[in-house]
């Protein structure tokens, strides 16, 4: 997706460049008057083709184009020219091609094994920080691992993502630990870099400034091209010398959907100068794979500039705000699929039957969950966007289904004495013990029952009216707080009809526009919350001088989301509107309120839709939820909706969750700017200043007195006042919706007419994100209840259990899964607090052997373990993948690794 520029370039590729296509060779003329390079450069033409999944046209049209205009011609060229190399950037391109041409498998296998045909080591080219950590890692599973498995003897070692001006903090660690040591990016300062993740692992990166830049050389007539190449080499000479880089130079030939091209005339001209006095003067010009270039570059141990940090993505309006339904499905799939993996693995281990692990279904769901790349919209974008959304909804649906099935199977194995009542088993997919609300649907007849824990203690509960559509089914929704549910485990509760008196405390204080419970005093105002006072911390959490708490407001939002701009296209206050400007009033909801929570509602019809808002103040846990609906949104172009949470911390600090890590604003971004790309396009804003940001589950803001953490249901969130004369305190702002248009000349609108639903949760704590991150994550990852599961004959599990216990505070388990290659169990753990830790992992099964493996479950190294678990050092920010062999599964001949 070269955006506006490349919509034109696409046409030009096949017009002005047509004479240079293979078979129609360039005319060779000496470069009169050009002086050759002073050094013996080895120049490598990396003949590639930038490929979005679609964007240039509908996905089907692009698949056909890739076949007929890129891959098939490349195979033909390679068959007749043994020196020719060609790169396709995504493994998805190979998957599509093999499906269309199973007959070409042998050719592809041969050329790939020879290293002449190269495939990007990841599935596609995503917006990195939009995806969850596990989703990012699966890009390498469906990339390098897929290739190695399906084309034995072949490998892919380079991650291509040259189009997206954004990099995730932990991407380099993921790549590095997946055996992908190199990365081709662009839209960043020209150069070669050692790009690190905060744990210290790194990849070598190359940025040509913009991926199309070498086209000026390669697209020119040979003599002119040789002159330009000379000038280019000269301009790099000092850089190479300063960085002790061997004189290896890459000429990346990559334009959107560019075809394999014969640069023979330029090569002949240049190399002819080796012995005569041609422009090459001792330098050589040849085709090369990117891997060979990087190997040659790194062999001599160059002194590369080191970069660490998040590069906040400039192209973020194109996903969350403009494709809200699809991206919501992607985020939910990112939470449901690991949960499904975890509990299906546990079910399989309990049943000792690997056949019941839904490997194929899991694979299909994961592939769908990462299918969309960065090329939303574009020509026939309505087709592309729909395909992306369908894939993501499929992944989410499969995740739910597989999770439900696994939970039912496990619940059936729990010994739940029927005398204790109607069982509700509550599962926790996160790796720490937690207390959170749970809602289950129960028969209406049981609505007066008590909820008790396994020891018979009454648990506070509340019955809600049936959900819309369930009124006639005589069902009710029962809510209670599940206390201390073990991490990666479960806890059993019972509904009893014993009629014991419910000892609910007196309802908390409520007056007009005011509510108070154990944790907070909340004051309502038209359009939002005037005040939230934390009674424990004795702090006013909000500064509502400009915006109220949870106030919805709307801005003018002109732009396309992704395109040839140097800074994020910010919204403006033209036609600004906010709920506090209207006569809106909060109404207490007596049906939704009870001992667990108080609910207040607001509804206001605005010009282009109706806003419904619900504030839920929990009485049992320290949390305030805000549910928002934009109903009947009419799709007015270029509007944006946000919700504000103005934090009373002038000059306060802000941090937010990224895939498997935390970014503190102003501290954890890469230094400096993105730099010049081409022409006048310059990413001239300090990366630390770029906003809004891609956020996983939460943002935190804090000052000296308190910290506030907001769980968000949307991908894109801001933290600074967007209006003129910005206030000095952070305003956390989920971006709900933006109706923009694709930058493609024939692109679609992203209007999203219809109903949109959101949910946010607030909690407060001592200063620092570290005191709120678990609550920030868990508010987005609900507990999963299973009601009424029968107790099977083989039920031998206790009423409460953790299947995997983790000791270290900052160590979070991102997934537990069945190994791709055998029946062992993979556990992935990452350190989030930035501290070295001693990890004690205690699985529920006797451990026979433990290994540390790569991110794609290869390169196993035995590590010491005991029968009841293992202890290992987990470095700060590290992501580690462990392979565990239950004692019974240790293959014959294996000695349990280092068992004490």
């Amino acid at each position, binding site marked *: 997706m070269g955006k506006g520029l490349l919509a034109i370039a696409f046409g030009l590729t096949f017009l002005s460049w047509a004479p240079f296509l293979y078979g129609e060779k360039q005319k060779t003329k000496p470069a009169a008057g050009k002086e050759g390079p002073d050094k013996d450069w080895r120049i490598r033409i990396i003949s590639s083709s930038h490929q979005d999944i679609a964007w240039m046209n509908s996905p089907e049209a692009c698949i056909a184009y890739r076949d007929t205009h890129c891959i098939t011609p490349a195979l033909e060229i390679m068959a007749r020219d043994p020196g020719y190399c060609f790169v396709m950037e995504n493994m998805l391109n190979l998957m599509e091609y093999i499906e269309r041409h199973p007959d070409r498998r042998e050719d592809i296998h041969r050329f790939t094994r020879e290293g002449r045909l190269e495939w990007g080591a990841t599935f596609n080219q995503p917006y990195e920080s939009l995806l969850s950590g596990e989703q990012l890692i699966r890009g390498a599973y469906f990339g390098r691992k897929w290739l190695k498995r399906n084309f034995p003897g072949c490998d892919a070692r380079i991650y291509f993502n040259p189009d997206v001006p954004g990099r995730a903090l932990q991407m380099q660690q993921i790549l590095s630990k997946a055996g992908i040591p190199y990365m081709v990016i662009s839209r960043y300062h020209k150069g070669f870099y050692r790009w690190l993740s905060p744990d210290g692992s790194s990849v070598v990166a190359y940025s040509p400034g913009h991926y199309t830049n070498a086209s000026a050389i390669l697209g020119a007539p040979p003599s002119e091209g040789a002159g330009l190449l000379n000038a280019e080499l000269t301009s790099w000479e000092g850089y190479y010398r300063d960085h002790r880089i061997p004189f290896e130079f890459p000429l990346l030939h990559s334009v959107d959907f560019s075809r394999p091209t014969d640069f023979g005339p330029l090569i002949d001209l240049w190399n002819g100068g080796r012995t005569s006095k041609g422009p090459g003067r001792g330098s050589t010009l040849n085709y090369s794979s990117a891997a060979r270039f990087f190997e040659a570059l790194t062999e001599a141990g160059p002194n590369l500039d080191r970069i660490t940090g998040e590069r906040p993505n400039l192209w973020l309006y194109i996903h969350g705000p403009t494709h809200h339904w699809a991206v919501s499905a992607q985020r939910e799939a990112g939470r449901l699929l690991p949960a499904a993996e975890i509990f299906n693995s546990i079910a399989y281990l309990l049943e000792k039957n690997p056949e019941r692990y839904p490997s194929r279904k899991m694979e299909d769901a994961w592939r769908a969950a990462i299918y969309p790349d960065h090329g939303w919209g574009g020509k026939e974008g*309505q087709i592309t966007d*729909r395909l992306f959304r369908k894939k993501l909804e499929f992944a989410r649906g499969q995740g739910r289904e597989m999770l439900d099935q696994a939970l039912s199977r496990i619940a059936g194995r729990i010994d739940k004495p029927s005398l204790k009542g109607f069982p509700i088993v509550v599962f926790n997919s996160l790796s720490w013990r937690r207390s959170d609300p749970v809602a289950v649907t129960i028969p209406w007849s049981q609505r007066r029952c008590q909820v008790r824990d396994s020891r018979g203690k009454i648990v506070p509960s509340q019955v809600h009216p049936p959900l819309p559509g369930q009124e006639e089914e005589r069902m009710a929704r029962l809510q209670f707080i599940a206390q201390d549910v073990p991490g990666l485990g479960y806890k059993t509760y019972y509904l009893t009809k014993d009629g014991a008196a419910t000892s609910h405390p007196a309802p908390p204080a409520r007056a007009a526009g005011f509510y108070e419970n154990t944790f907070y005093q909340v004051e309502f105002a038209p359009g939002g919350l005037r005040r939230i006072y934390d009674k424990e911390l004795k702090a006013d959490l909000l500064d509502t001088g400009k915006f109220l708490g949870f106030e919805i407001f709307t801005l003018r939002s002109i732009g396309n989301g992704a395109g040839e701009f140097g800074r994020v296209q910010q919204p403006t206050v033209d036609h600004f509107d906010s709920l506090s400007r209207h006569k809106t009033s909060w109404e207490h909801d007596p049906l939704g309120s009870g001992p667990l929570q108080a609910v207040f509602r607001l509804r206001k019809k605005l010009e282009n839709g109706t806003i419904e808002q619900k504030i839920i103040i929990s009485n049992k846990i320290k949390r305030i939820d805000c549910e928002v609906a934009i109903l009947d949104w009419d799709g007015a172009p270029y509007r944006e909706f946000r919700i504000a949470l103005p934090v009373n911390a002038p000059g306060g600090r802000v941090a937010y969750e990224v895939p498997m890590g935390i970014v503190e604003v102003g501290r954890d971004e890469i230094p400096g700017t993105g730099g010049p790309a081409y022409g006048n396009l310059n990413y001239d804003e300090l990366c630390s200043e770029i906003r809004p940001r891609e956020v996983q589950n939460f943002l935190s803001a804090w000052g000296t007195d308190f910290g506030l953490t907001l769980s968000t249901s949307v991908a894109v969130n801001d933290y600074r006042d967007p209006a003129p004369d910005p206030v000095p305190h952070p305003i956390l702002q989920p971006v709900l919706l933006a109706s923009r248009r694709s930058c493609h000349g024939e692109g*679609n609108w992203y209007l999203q*007419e219809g109903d949109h639903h959101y949910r946010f949760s607030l909690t407060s704590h001592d200063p620092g994100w570290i005191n709120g991150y678990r609550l920030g994550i868990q508010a987005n990852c609900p507990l999963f209840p299973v009601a009424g599961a029968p107790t099977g004959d083989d039920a031998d599990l206790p009423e409460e259990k953790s299947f995997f216990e983790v000791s270290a505070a900052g160590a979070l388990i991102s997934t537990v899964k069945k190994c791709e290659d055998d029946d062992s169990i993979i556990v992935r753990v990452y350190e989030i607090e930035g501290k070295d830790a001693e990890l004690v992992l205690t699985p529920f099964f006797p451990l026979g052997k433990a290994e540390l493996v790569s991110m794609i479950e290869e390169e196993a190294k035995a590590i010491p373990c005991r029968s009841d678990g293992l202890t290992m050092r987990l470095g700060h920010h590290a992501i580690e993948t462990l392979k565990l062999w239950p004692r019974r599964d240790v293959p014959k001949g294996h000695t349990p690794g280092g068992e004490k």
Partner: protein
Amino acid sequence: MKSIEETIKGRRSVRKYKPDPVKDETILDLLELATYAPSAGLAFGKEHPWSFVVIKDKVMLNRLSDVAKAYTLKFIENVPAFDWFRPSCQDPHYHLYYHAPALVMILGEKGSPISLIDCVLAAENFMLAAHAQGLGTCWVEWTKQAAQDKALMAELGIPEGLVIHASIVLGYPDEIPAAPERRPPHVIKWAR
């Protein structure tokens, strides 16, 4: 959701539409359902037994209507059986697509009877699915006459080798005609 029987029996050929546009997303949903029709082409390994052209552009719909009417007039000069349609084609106010907000063409391989059957089956799926979602459709056969205008076909992106097998207008019904009475199935023989 309507039962399959209600859907089949309730579908009508709609010739009066509201101006309300049909969302792209809705049309894409219907096209997907169309591709679940029985298909010999698919069974024989064809990647795309059907191709689709969707026209929502009013100017293009008007132009296509005019072109199709003009070619239809020529066609019926030699086919007296269609004389009844002549006045409509001569009427400048008559719109071949009833001012519906969208037209969907289903294209198949030229000269392939299998392709024709595939496309017609897909068209039936499309029309039933549309009806199930509260949309009206009408098969407009005369669009095929417009295929003689090569420039127009090229403008619509229809490549050589593909022909229009089905042309269906789509929109929200403003008037739903009554169903003509269906006689009981005329079974000629029931061999037991």
